[in-house]
């Protein structure tokens, strides 16, 4: 199909790249340089122009397109692009917005503004942070099957009770599947993704991906890092992401502290967040942090406006005694750097948005997608239909028809969790959560 992507920034380029192999992709951007760069980088048609203008969309072949994805950094442009496209042609539209007020409007009147799917970057980022806080030791968390299933990525610390155990020994949880083990890149003997067997040994530094029920994943999280219990959360920066994160934490009963330097913004936050303690102060003021018992803080989340400030504030807080640091990072290339120098989890809003949008552009029956380790693998949720290789067969027999690198992580039947084992029979209508390595993705998607 033909897909028009409005905006050739990080999100647009990333989406265009992941779609370019299978679809006809047209990318529209006002910036001539970016357009030119993209023309050479990807096998896509790049057009210079305003995505909100009729002529540009027509030039991009809107009449032949099935999907329009508006992902510029400007909310209004994205919404107007979708609205314009909708008036011209029957096309599915996806808009990315930062401001949650548009998301609220849209959610209360679905399909409003000519947008079929609205992806709220700030809210998604906040959700991501909140779920990481909910699972203290996790580096990444995604939920599937209406939230009944969670996928979580853990890095095993040296002192972790499961480090050194085999998978069979560590697997003490009924409703949990070890989907994959990703070894650290610098260890030459283990660069690939390992699909674990019972005798696979877990070692410190490994990243383990588990899929299971909420309770099982939480229990595993406590087994991996028994001391982790996040009650004392410090948010630095009352940006939209910081605000939304505090709101989500409040819903879970976590009373966070939020530091905001701007008096007016602090006042707004204090009024909007009844259970959060808003402090009007500078997060780099050592005396202040010490008087607020920074050393008792379980996790510090930095959601300031600049990456550099987030890095500094996070490191500073950790140095003064905070246990863990989560930082928002806009620039994709900084993610590794952040995690190398001491930030425990770097969350990139653009990646979160791209992930969410990719979910809608997958084969029609994929329900939900999580991208692991910058495209090395994906966790996908699929509703099994009659044509699936799994329909009315055991997992073991179906697996024989699939390439390696595929793990059935969880099955949800009529809202209930079904433990996936070799002899489990899968039926049409079941929601199955798979872990799939990137190399096996195309073939697997076609069969399941």
């Amino acid at each position, binding site marked *: 199909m033909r897909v028009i992507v409005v905006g050739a920034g990080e999100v647009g380029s990333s989406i265009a790249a992941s779609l370019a192999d299978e679809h006809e992709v047209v990318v529209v951007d006002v910036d001539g340089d970016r357009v030119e760069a993209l023309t050479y980088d990807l096998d896509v048609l790049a057009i210079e122009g305003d995505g909100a203008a009729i002529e540009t969309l027509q030039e991009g072949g809107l009449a032949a397109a099935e999907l329009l994805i508006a992902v510029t950094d400007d909310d209004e442009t994205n919404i107007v692009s979708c609205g314009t496209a909708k008036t011209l042609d029957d096309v599915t539209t996806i808009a990315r917005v930062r401001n949650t007020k548009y998301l609220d409007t849209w959610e209360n009147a679905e399909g409003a503004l000519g947008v079929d799917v609205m992806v709220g970057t700030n809210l998604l980022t906040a959700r991501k942070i909140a779920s990481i806080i909910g699972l203290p030791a996790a580096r990444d968390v995604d939920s599937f099957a209406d939230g009944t299933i969670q996928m979580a990525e853990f890095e095993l610390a040296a002192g972790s009770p499961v480090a050194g155990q085999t998978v069979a020994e560590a697997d003490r949880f009924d409703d949990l599947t070890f989907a994959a083990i990703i070894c650290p890149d610098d260890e030459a003997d283990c660069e690939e993704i390992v699909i674990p067997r019972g005798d696979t040994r877990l070692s410190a530094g490994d990243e383990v991906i588990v899929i299971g029920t909420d309770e099982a994943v939480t229990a595993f999280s406590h087994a991996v890092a028994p001391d982790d219990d996040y009650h004392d959360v410090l948010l630095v920066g009352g940006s939209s992401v910081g605000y939304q994160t505090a709101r989500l934490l409040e819903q879970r009963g976590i009373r966070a502290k939020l530091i905001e330097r701007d008096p007016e913004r602090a006042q707004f936050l*204090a009024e909007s967040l*009844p259970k959060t303690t808003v*402090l009007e102060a500078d997060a780099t003021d050592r005396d202040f942090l010490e008087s*607020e018992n920074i050393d008792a803080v379980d996790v510090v989340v930095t959601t300031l406006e600049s990456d550099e400030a987030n890095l500094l504030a996070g490191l500073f807080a950790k140095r003064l005694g905070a246990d863990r640091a989560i930082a928002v990072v806009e620039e994709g290339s900084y993610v590794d750097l952040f995690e190398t120098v001491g930030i425990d989890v770097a969350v990139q809003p653009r990646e979160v948005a791209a992930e969410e949008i990719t979910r809608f552009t997958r084969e029609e029956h994929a329900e939900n997608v999580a991208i692991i380790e910058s495209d090395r693998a994906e966790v996908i949720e699929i509703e099994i239909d009659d044509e699936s290789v799994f329909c009315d067969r055991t997992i073991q027999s179906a697996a024989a028809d699939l390439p390696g690198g595929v793990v059935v992580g969880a099955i949800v039947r009529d809202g209930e969790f079904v433990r996936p084992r070799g002899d489990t029979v899968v039926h049409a209508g079941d929601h199955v959560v798979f872990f799939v390595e990137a190399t096996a993705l195309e073939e697997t998607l076609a069969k399941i």
Partner: protein
Amino acid sequence: MNGHLRVDWRASLSLTGRVLLYLAVPLLLPLVTALLYGEGWMPFLATIVVTTLLGYGLSQLDDDRDIGAREGFLMVASTWLAVALVGTLPYLLAEHGTASTLSWPHVPNALFESMSGFTTTGATVMKNIGVEHHSHALLIWRQLTQWLGGMGIVVLAVAILPELSVGGAQLMDAEAPGPGIEKLTPRIAETARVLWIAYFAFTVLEMALLYGLHLAGFAKEMTLFNAISHGLTTLPTGGFSPEAYSIEVFSAAVQWAIIPFMVVAGTNFALFWGLVRGDPRSLLADEEFRFYTGAMASLTAVVTVVLFVGSSLPGTVGLAGVEQSLRHGLFQVVSIVTTTGYASFDFNGWSMTAQYLLLFGMFLGGSAGSTGGAIKMVRWLVIAKSIKRELFTTVHPEAVKPVRLGGRALDESAIRGIHAFTLLYIALFFLSVVVLMLDAGRIGMELQVLDGMSAIAATIGNVGPGFGAVGPMENYLSFPWTSKFLMVFLMWIGRLEIFPVLVLLTRAYWRS
């Protein structure tokens, strides 16, 4: 001189005149009562004539009744003063009245009784109450003044005078108890009407219930006259009763029946609007309502225990003692806290502990938007919350912590206003106690400090009875006329929540 004034006092007084004109209508009730009972009706006809003439005269002052905030304060203050003055006429003219004569010593008494009625205070200077000593018509007039004053004469005016559609919100703001008004409907006149309809409906309901108890044989003394009379003074949290011994003369059934109506009277009437519109949770979800009922429940629990243990009541043994302690404890706490001022028992005989608890209750008051007086629950709630915030910010100096009411953050200026009001209220209380004690001493009247304090708290808070010399079965007659004027003033400013009257005394109000 006129050119320098920033206040269009003609417009204000003209509106006051309009209200007086309308006051002539309810005066028909005592007139009809007099005719029914074959009593002297001339005093009431004379009052109607005087009220109408005065009202007409004032209303002719200005036909451009364009009012702003300043005119609003003057209009509200002068209206309450005017109705209280006109309201003295029946007392001065009636054959069996307080005074029955226009001679000097009776003028302050009549004014006291009239102001106490309209402000729903319920303090009385009548030595002998009851139909044996006064005409039914005069007693009904006394009850009626409370009913008219309860929801607010100005609120009533806003409901029925179309020219107040614009300035009405300011007028109601100046008059209505509690900080700020809540617009229930887009049109202010509609809001005022809703409030009065709810008020009227509850009044009729209570009258029917009380008379129903009589018909059912549970209340011998609750005649139709008494049922109507008490219906007229419960909902305005007034407290006047045509019976000398107030609610004590009635059966336990009547006492229990009156309690919920006093609770209703002290509740924000806007909440009933939510109830009518099919949202029953609006009542329980309201923070002030929970605080109001919670405060009364806790105070009742303490008073009940004090009464039971202290055996202040006859028959305080066994279950009868428990029922009596609870009934009188609850009745008196609700009556005092809502500033109704009925008495189911002569609490002068109670222990000092119980009496001090009631004195404390006199400062609590009903909810904002109710007919109750005193400082009001919402103010105490906000003060409690802001103290809690102070404690928190002592530990966390950088914390930004708005004070929330019902989930909404309050404006700092509103909090300052509440602190200022409460401080001023308490300062006026102490100042007035000193003046009263000095004045009583001047004529050699023996006045206990607790009695004097209760007299001031009861008048500025529109409660009614106090303790000792001004206890529920006593009266305010023995005070010197100077003290009576002081208390008339306190009732007046207490009903209007001090500021609307006090601003009239500032230079800034009259000049730019």
